[in-house]
């Protein structure tokens, strides 16, 4: 593609903008119908800019500042003493419980992400594909059923699931084997799986090595049984929202494409994988990245269902920030944690930006 041809659409847009003289008047230094566009502009933006300064920009800098202090979260914040990089050192370098807990929260959240994101994306895609079929009877009712959890309060859903995950609850009726005490079991799923094959204890090679204060054996635990229950709840809730995103994409695919594939003799399965799926790539990316960002922030469900337990097997960075800052009198440490989490999530946001801008170039 040559430079000039790539500039053409932008040039056309600019021309179109210039047509509406009034709108672009003072950009060109000409006389506007309203001579004080600068003043009106800022006047219109003032409420938002003011609010953003006080409730978003200022807090960002405050968070940074607090992360360098020993503020407890209770005393007047301005009396907090500066401690330099101590909080970060406690989290990342110094041997001790705090660092192990931080590693644990990252581990828990990591397993949560790698199970929840693929499962909820696949499920949402399948649901969308099914309720998109024109021949399906009552498809509006199915859509309704699948989407309804999305508008329900996360806390309400969490309590309903906690009720169903009781030892004598609904879920255990459908799970074969002895009843599971879901929220009292901190064993990792991978450890449990290994246990089936007789590996109950850590091989010495894995227990002697540790990373950020957590042994390699512990890193490889998989999500705890309690975390699995929370993952089930979250997947159940979000798949409907994401289904609607896919459905929007499916409805934009012209029917003629599918019809052409039918005439060419493609089976339904091939049509799905070779025609529909490639055309949905923008939605797949969007759902994956929204999922990644959302799952690294999981908080509500943890708070309502397990409060981090049992044995800290469901603590996540987001929950740990809250717990250290508001329940444990360690707001300085909590703020340092927040900064670290922010770095993790910013990474994914950048990925999202790139994908979304790629997408807008494509369309």
């Amino acid at each position, binding site marked *: 593609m040559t430079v000039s041809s790539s500039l053409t659409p932008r040039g056309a847009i600019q021309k179109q903008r210039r047509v509406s003289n009034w709108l672009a008047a003072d950009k060109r230094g000409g006389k506007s119908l309203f001579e004080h566009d600068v003043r009106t502009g800022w006047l219109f*933006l003032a409420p*938002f800019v003011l609010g*953003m300064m006080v409730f978003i920009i200022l807090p960002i800098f405050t968070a940074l500042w607090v992360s360098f202090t020993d503020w407890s979260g209770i005393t007047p914040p301005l009396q907090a003493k500066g401690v330099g990089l101590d909080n970060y050192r406690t989290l990342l370098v110094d041997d001790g419980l705090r660092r192990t807990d931080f590693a644990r929260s990252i581990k828990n959240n990591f397993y949560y992400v790698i199970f929840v994101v693929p499962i909820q994306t696949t499920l949402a895609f399948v649901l969308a594909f099914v309720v998109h079929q024109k021949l399906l009877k009552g498809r509006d009712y199915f859509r309704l059923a699948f989407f309804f959890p999305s508008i329900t309060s996360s*806390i309400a859903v969490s309590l309903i699931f906690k009720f169903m995950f009781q030892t004598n609850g*609904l879920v255990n009726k459908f799970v074969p084997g002895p009843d599971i005490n879901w929220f009292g079991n901190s064993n990792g799923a991978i450890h449990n799986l290994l246990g089936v094959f007789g590996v109950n204890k850590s091989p010495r090679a894995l227990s002697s090595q540790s990373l950020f204060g957590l042994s390699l054996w512990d890193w490889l635990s998989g999500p705890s049984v309690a975390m699995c229950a929370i993952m089930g709840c979250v997947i159940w809730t979000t798949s409907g929202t994401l289904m609607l995103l896919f459905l929007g994409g499916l409805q934009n695919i012209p029917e003629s494409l599918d019809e052409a594939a039918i005439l060419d003799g493609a089976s339904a399965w091939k049509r799905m994988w070779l025609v529909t799926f490639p055309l949905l790539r923008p939605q797949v990316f969007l759902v994956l990245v929204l999922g990644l960002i959302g799952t690294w922030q999981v*908080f509500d469900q943890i*708070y309502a269902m397990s409060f981090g337990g049992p044995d800290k097997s469901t603590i996540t960075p987001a929950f740990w920030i*809250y717990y250290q800052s*508001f329940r444990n009198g360690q707001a300085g440490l909590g703020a340092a944690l927040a900064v670290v989490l922010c770095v993790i999530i910013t990474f994914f946001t950048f990925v999202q930006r790139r994908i979304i801008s790629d997408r807008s170039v494509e369309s």
Partner: protein
Amino acid sequence: MTDLQIGPARGRRVLDAEGLLARRARQRLALKIVGYSILLAAAMVYVLPFLLSLISAFKTDPDISKNPVSLAFDRALGSPSLDGVKALDSDAVNFPRWTLNSIIVTVTVVFGRLVIASLGGYALARMRFRGRQLVFSLMLLVMGIPHIVLAVPQFIVLKQMNILNTYWAMILPMLFDCADLLIMKQFMEQIPPEMEEAAALDGATRFQTFRQVVLPMAAPGLLTLIILRSVGVWNEFLKVLIAVPAAPQLRTLPVGLASLQGEFGQSTPWATMLAGALLTTIPMAILFFLFQKHFKQGLASGAVKG
């Protein structure tokens, strides 16, 4: 198709073709039955939790702990009963007040946000002035910052402003949403500028143009946004949780609901908690059934929260 083209002259082949057609029809029917069964089972997975909660909310404590799975009431144990629902209005548990708080906060925040975001969105969409690009870039920059990261410092701001444990602490931090402003900007850019120019030539001020020309034309999109955001604010948990830590009477429904687990000592009051969960859901369910179309549109157009 080829089956049908076989000529009638060859009797045996016709019979075979009919047999083939019948078999295919049977196969298709079987496939249909299996497909619908799977789909119905999947739908049950989504509906059953609500149904079970609805019924359990009217069970007595002995019934619910003995039969937590049953969809029927055990009359011998006193079900159905309104005890669980009645406990929603006791000393420490104040659902009527929490419902009122939820309504106050949701209405104020959604309305306020709309005013603030539509004004700002209009400025970004239609006016050219120094600093516009700066505000825009700043917004894109801070949009991705997770709520939990801002929780501690927002708490400090609220504390320093001396408004912790008031309605203001819940409402103010939720009023300024970058995503809303960007969506508004998009809405406004889609409106043909000729109308505004006409208004300007008629001597309307910018604000008059905004109120009487732009806003009405953006109304359908605004309604979709209002509905989506109402659900979001109604269900907001973390921001309210940190805003009113020491004022139980100011809790909204989700925060109140989460506090129930500690209010009853050792035993978990399931009937009350499930009744509360449903009570929190019902207003949004009504909104959803009234405005289904808007949910679909809103999500399809990308007005989803990241």
